């Protein structure tokens, strides 16, 4: 199944794109989706402890299962204001 993945800030610069599509296996969790990108961009690995994930524009635990069409984002520490 397919999900949309968004990257912001430092992650966007590493991945080189703000938005990607990913084809993942049914039953996959947000954590698995991150692993999918980490394999292609090893520089993502050290960011993992400081990231939070969102699913459909709400913060979500890494263990949350994905559904087709989900919009997932990996969010670096926020620094608005």
């Amino acid at each position: 199944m397919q999900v949309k993945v968004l990257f912001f800030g430092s992650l966007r610069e590493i991945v080189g794109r703000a938005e990607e599509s990913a084809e993942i296996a049914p039953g996959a969790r947000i954590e698995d989706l991150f692993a999918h990108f980490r394999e292609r961009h090893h520089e993502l690995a050290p960011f993992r402890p400081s990231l939070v994930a969102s699913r459909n524009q709400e913060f979500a635990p890494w263990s949350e299962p994905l559904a087709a069409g989900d919009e997932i984002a990996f969010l670096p520490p926020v620094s608005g204001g």
Partner: protein
Amino acid sequence: MKREDEQHLPMSAPAEDLVQIVRQPIDPLALMNHVRGPGDGAVASFDGCVRDNSAGRATLYLEYEGYEPMARLKMLEICARIRERFAIHRVAIVHRLGRLEIGETSVFIAVSAAHRGPAFEACRYAIDTLKRIVPIWKKEFFADGAVWADGEIPPSGNPGAPAGV
């Protein structure tokens, strides 16, 4: 503490609150005027502006980037939390994205209330919470390079529950 004339509005109606993400200069006066009504005795405001230095290192300019639809939702969530916690009347929160020069306003928050205590407390709560939960990122440009500002890791993993304060 709602004003008499608001008692018939549904509890969930922050229709009067103003939440915006913009790319042009923010107009503080418009926001202060937006929140104030005849029952208000106090408007507390916070203007976040671009400093000329970061920990003593001279800043040239900043660039803000946001996850806009989620940032909007989180700013609306801040308005809702404020209404639950403080006896306030109306809230306006506007954040600017893109390139900002020294001295420009990146975020402006105005809160009206009958009394000053809740207005101040809600305004402070709003900016403190914005800096913790709203997905916006700031890149600082210096003469010799640029860095993404150190940020705060939003509380998460428990969606639906209010992020702890």
